[in-house]
């Protein structure tokens, strides 16, 4: 399983996202290294198809697909938790579901 965390330093959320991701991987018994990819400019954002920070991909698939037509740019991603609240990081249960799908 390949696990990537793509992040941009204009958003302070990536340490929290990384900690949550590692926690879920540990709880699920998955021994995968998290590859961290810093996105530094718009050209790289386009090239990496980066919809915002943080973005987590497992085996190349975004764990929360951003939707058709989402722009690729240096921005912060807006996630929704399972109870409907806005969040700068994915709901941990969405992370867990993605890990289980890929395992």
């Amino acid at each position, binding site marked *: 399983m390949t696990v990537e965390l793509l992040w941009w330093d204009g958003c*302070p959320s990536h340490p929290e996202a990384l900690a949550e991701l590692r926690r879920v991987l540990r709880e699920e018994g998955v021994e995968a290294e998290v590859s961290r990819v810093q996105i530094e400019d718009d050209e790289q954002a386009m090239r990496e198809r980066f919809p915002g920070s943080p973005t987590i991909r497992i085996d190349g698939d975004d764990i929360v697909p951003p939707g058709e037509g989402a722009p690729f740019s240096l921005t912060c991603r807006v996630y929704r938790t399972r109870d409907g609240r806005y969040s700068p990081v994915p709901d941990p249960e969405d992370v867990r579901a993605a890990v289980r799908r890929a395992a």
Partner: protein
Amino acid sequence: MTAIGDRAPEFTLPDTAGEEHSLETPAVVVFTCNHCPYALAWHDRIASAARDYPDIHFYAINPNDAEGYPRDSLEAMRERVEREGDWPMPYLRDESQEVASAFGAKTTPDLFVLDADGVLRYRGAPDADYQDETLDAGWLRDALNCLRASEDVARPETDPIGCSIKWKQ
């Protein structure tokens, strides 16, 4: 850059309907935006405080570069206010970014609480955790309660947490 104890800069900015608003005090000036998840997560708590403190003037100001971040354009701000329909404070556009710069705002959100003389008494985050709705903008409310009681704010400064303000290049 406005520090605790400094008099805050005055401003006049347009809201989403084109009406101009000038700073009146006491006030809460909130730099915020449409595209930042931290600003969105804290918005309801700040709006709730605005309703609970009708004697305080609340201003939400969006200073972000709309060219790079179209979700923060005046049109997108207007659509949001119309969609949500229950804003207890004007949503102002700081197109030149001069107001955000003069205040020294860093993030969205970034809050500035001004007393009746326009002096900065609190600056920072609404409360300790964007995820915990039960905190109910407690740091902001503590500051406002101190203003009402003419007391010094016990915690006058906290680190603003959120997305960096998107300055024009």
